[in-house]
């Protein structure tokens, strides 16, 4: 797996003995998503995408990823809707859509 995945079954510690000793915890341990942050979401027109990978390169959160057949997809759990991908896309194939109310 190229990116960390959310631990959906994680239960926060409730008893002292469930806490880690010292401030040490596995890296890449995710329990929350960031989707609620955004007011608009990027949508890639995969038909017209040239796969230049600029959006993939420039996403501060790394949520754009290559799929098996080379298409790019977005992990909307962790996309914050900053709009950098749409702004920097060389072919203008990404548009920002308002999130549903």
């Amino acid at each position, binding site marked *: 797996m190229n990116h960390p995945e959310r631990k959906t079954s994680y239960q926060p510690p409730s008893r002292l003995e469930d806490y880690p000793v*010292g401030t040490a915890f596995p*890296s890449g341990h995710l329990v929350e998503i960031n989707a609620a942050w955004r007011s608009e979401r990027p949508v890639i027109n995969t038909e017209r995408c040239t796969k230049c990978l600029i959006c993939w390169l420039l996403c501060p959160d790394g949520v754009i990823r290559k799929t098996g057949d080379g298409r790019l997809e977005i992990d909307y759990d962790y996309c914050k809707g900053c709009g950098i991908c749409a702004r920097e896309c060389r072919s203008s194939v990404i548009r920002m859509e308002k999130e549903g109310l």
Partner: protein
Amino acid sequence: MSRGSRAFISGNEAIAAGVRLARPHVIAAYPITPQTTVIERLAEMVADGNLAAEYLHVESEHSALSACIGASAVGARTFTASSSQGLLYMVECMHYASGGRFPVVMMNANRSVALPWNIYGDQRDSLSLLDSGWIQAYAEDAQESLDLVVQAFAIAEHPEVLTPVMVNLDGFVLTHTYELVNVPDQVDVDAFLPPFQTTNKMDPERPMSLGFTAGPQHNQAFKQLQHLSMLSAGRVIRETEERFGQLFGRNYPGLVDAFLCEDAEYVIVTLGSVAGTVRPVVDRLRSMGERVGLLRIRYMRPFPELEIRDALAGTKAVGVLEKDISFGYEGTVFTNVNSALTRAGAKPPRLLNFIGGLGGKDISVTDIEALFSRLKASDAGETVTFI
């Protein structure tokens, strides 16, 4: 089988000898009087190839402890040393090490804290840091210094403890005084102190995130766990000393060293090398039929409340002699002793606090005799007295 070698060395040199035997991976330290000869001896050992440690010439004490924490965080055994101003410069990192449960071992040369400037020994530096989460031991002589620092790694690294340890030596009086010391053989220390193992570390095979933040929901639990581990350390210290005694033939009495306290009516409680001045007074008064004793506290954290209660049972008057004052109140050792005795319902009729030795002020045999006279006087006088 050879059981160590005899050396005529100073307290500081004894620390260096002990540290070398413990095989630290990383040493990071910054010079400050009267700690300097510790790190000079260690540097000589490294330069001669007698100590295979990474020796970092850090540019401050804060960086010294910060570097030790970084090394400990990848699983290395680490050592640093400081004193006074330098110790206080690294206080942020002291809390970091204890909260992060990094078993760093540090030697502290007890020295007065500015202002005024003073390079001589008192214990305000370490005693002002009892809340920093470090185990604190106080040595009386050079042999104990060496033995304490070797034991310190074993105690600190114990999985139930995982707490940094500070070994305190009185500045100049102990750091620079020469005594005959038995320096153990490396093979025996290797048997006593196995390599450092921990899961509290960054690991290329198992990526971990260390030193994280914990908000209001979780933070207190971490602190409570830290406190409970410090409380367990008392038992671990005694077990470690027993193992040490079996291997090296020197038996240490645990968190306190009680000298003729069993039937004593008047006891002086103190820390560190001044105990060596109290002992001959106790001997002389005993020879005159007086029931007096000395209680030397060896570990201030974890605090030996039960041992103190037991040692002082049946006393008529006790004087806590310390080289420290918490301005606006009383001496810190007194506060701790008073609390322990009061909580146990075991407070003697008179409990006095003698503040002395600040800035290296001499405490003589005559001064100690006067303290015992104060204890015996029916009129207690002031609770807190500067002597």
